[in-house]
């Protein structure tokens, strides 16, 4: 037993070092996490640059209705120095004005005929700005017409937010927030899905390499096929974990570094607003930020991380064995496609289920089953876990995942043992089933 474990360890070591020592591993590991902070930095940088280099654009307004007073902003100033459109156009042509806005006489109930003249194509943000401003003005006019003061309307508008709390068994209250839970479930589910696919594929490639280069014949005269298979799965899993840990560390430090440096140049809030103004509209003000922090504070991160690691590894091991079996059954990666379906379908069901059911309603019965059945549970359960899952459900799901892992490994070992020695013949599902049934 000890000798057997020792050999598995040797295989793990080889698989691990063979990959970690590769230059491509180093490049992928170091560059991937740089992408996000880099994109962030580029956005912020562009925003800052644009703001600094911007010159005020003056737009001539020719308003035949006499109702519109356009308010100037940091970017745009409005003047109404000429009487008719032709003169305004001339100002644009000489470059004295950036553009001319023409508002013809019209019915306020059906505003049309408004035109903008410029030497160049106006940006969508300028058109948007103009449309927004005109819309507000027309709405105000309409309110006056009905005898309502727009100021009154503004006063009536009220911000309401409901604070959600969950009651624990002992009556303790935890502040929750669906958005935070959604984000956590979404992120961890996707990570597990990607991890299984990327590293599962590496297992398959590795098995095919050993099989097609015939190394496997020498290997299995020194090792049990099962030792070889498990060593490969665990070794590649360790590579993935290493990469993942490095990413977490790098993304963490780099992001805070980038934000820290930029934070000195401009307030973070403003930087984000510049980078993505639409997002800012949806994000709450500082008062709500405090609430989010409170929610994050309320999440039991130790058990969340523990569950993530469990489902991360459990899902990988469960599918890893299947990937190994597919690799053993075929001679070349191109032949593998026909056997990928039994792996891809449950993974996709878990992935789609996460978005369609689990994150929408974590406690529905579909969500329950998706998070219990071992093939989909690694992805689906991560979508539920931050919302809080009854202990027995979690225990059942984890227990079944472990059983499922033993099941797929048992199945895969039977296919693997025979498949790796078979060359030249393309097996069908039927022959593979024969391998599974054969005693030796």
């Amino acid at each position, binding site marked *: 037993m000890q*000798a057997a474990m020792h050999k598995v360890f040797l295989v793990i070591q080889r698989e691990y070092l063979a990959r970690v020592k590769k230059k491509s591993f180093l490049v992928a590991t170091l560059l991937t996490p740089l992408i996000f902070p880099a994109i962030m930095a580029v956005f912020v940088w562009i925003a800052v640059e644009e703001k600094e280099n911007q010159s005020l654009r003056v737009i001539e307004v020719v308003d035949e209705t006499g109702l519109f007073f356009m308010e100037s902003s940091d970017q745009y100033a409005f003047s109404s120095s000429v009487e008719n459109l032709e003169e305004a156009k001339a100002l644009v042509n000489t470059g004295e004005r950036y553009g001319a806005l023409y508002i013809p006489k019209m019915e306020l109930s059906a505003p049309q005929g408004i035109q903008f003249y410029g030497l160049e194509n106006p940006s969508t943000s300028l058109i948007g700005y103009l449309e927004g401003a005109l819309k507000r003005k027309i709405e105000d006019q309409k309110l006056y017409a009905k005898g309502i003061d727009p100021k009154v309307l503004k006063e009536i508008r009220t911000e309401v937010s409901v604070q959600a709390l969950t009651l624990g068994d002992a009556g303790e209250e935890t502040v929750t927030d669906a958005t935070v839970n959604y984000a956590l479930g979404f992120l961890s589910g996707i990570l597990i899905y990607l991890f299984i696919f990327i590293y599962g594929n590496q297992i398959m490639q590795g098995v095919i390499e050993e099989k097609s*280069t015939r190394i496997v014949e*020498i290997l299995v005269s*020194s090792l049990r096929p099962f030792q070889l298979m498990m060593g490969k799965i665990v070794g590649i899993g360790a590579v993935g974990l290493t990469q993942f840990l490095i990413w977490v560390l790098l993304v963490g430090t780099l992001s805070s570094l980038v934000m820290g440096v930029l934070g000195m140049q401009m307030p973070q809030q403003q930087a984000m607003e510049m980078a993505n103004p639409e997002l800012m509209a949806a994000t709450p003000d500082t008062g709500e930020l405090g609430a989010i922090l409170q929610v994050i504070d309320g999440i039991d991160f130790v058990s969340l991380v523990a569950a993530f690691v469990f489902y991360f590894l459990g899902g990988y091991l469960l599918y890893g064995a299947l990937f190994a079996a597919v690799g053993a059954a075929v001679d070349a990666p191109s032949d593998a496609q026909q056997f990928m379906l039994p792996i891809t379908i449950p993974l996709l069901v878990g992935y789609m289920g996460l978005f369609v059911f689990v994150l929408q309603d974590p406690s529905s019965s579909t969500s329950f089953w998706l998070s219990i059945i071992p093939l989909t549970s690694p992805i689906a359960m991560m979508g539920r876990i931050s919302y809080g899952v009854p202990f027995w459900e979690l225990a059942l799901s984890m227990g079944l995942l472990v059983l499922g892992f033993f099941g797929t490994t048992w199945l895969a070992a039977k296919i693997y043992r025979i498949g790796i020695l078979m060359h030249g013949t393309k097996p069908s599902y039927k022959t593979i089933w024969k391998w599974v049934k054969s005693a*030796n």
Partner: protein
Amino acid sequence: MLEIRQLNKTYGSHQALTDLNLVIPEAGIFGLLGPNGAGKTTLIRIINQIIEQDSGEVILDGQQLSGDAIRKIGYLPEERGLYKKMGVWDQLIYFSRIKGLTASEAKQRVTYWLEKFEISSWKNKKIEDLSKGMAQKIQFIATVIHSPRVLILDEPFSGFDPVNAAMLKNEILELKKGGTTILLSTHRMESVELLCDQVAMIHKSKKILDGSIREIKSRFRPLEIHASLSQLNQELPAAWKIEASEEGKVDLLIPLEGQSPNQLLRELMNFGEVISFQERFPSMEEIFIQQVNASGHA
């Protein structure tokens, strides 16, 4: 000593080995001969514990084969392969470790073999950067790195260039001298005649013949005589072939056709001065074909 007792193996409906018995003596070269598909590779895989027999036993040093035997056996499969992206040193260390050597033993052995073949400078080269001949050397080292008591070579000379084939032959003979039991499997029977002490012939899952080469050859009567005459006095019978002719020497190949060598010699003297007279024994391949025909397997 390696002993095979009543070994049977079937794949589905295909019988790969039928009641096979073999005794492979220690410190000798044992040739396992037979055409492709006769069951040689199946037998070798069973000895290597890659697959399991349906019934029968493999006895090594008086014991049933078990996991410990891995350390005692070295195996060069017919289809060879190494990790292309792995360095020579790392690869050899890995193969010796999975055979059961400790880290320090492995280092010492790998160093020894690299120095022996004067290829220490390849240490850090990847297999994909080596020529085919160089890779063959590494492959051979990987096979014998753990000093196996039993060495199993499946079609050892196929794929080797002449230089490396000669090297391989020398190494095999050296290992034999050192007491290694060598099992050499091939379908090219002529290639091993001079190398093997004993052979067994397998045809369609069954053993059809075994014994030492000398013994087998003496069991099969010579078919032809090589003879040389100083000159020809008269016309030769039609069945006699002139193999070579030069000034003062004519080489003949004469079928025995049921005569004893003595009778033939007497007759031959009538044609001129006999310089040499030698029985030509059948090759292993001819014996094999003869045996297959005789046993009605063909």
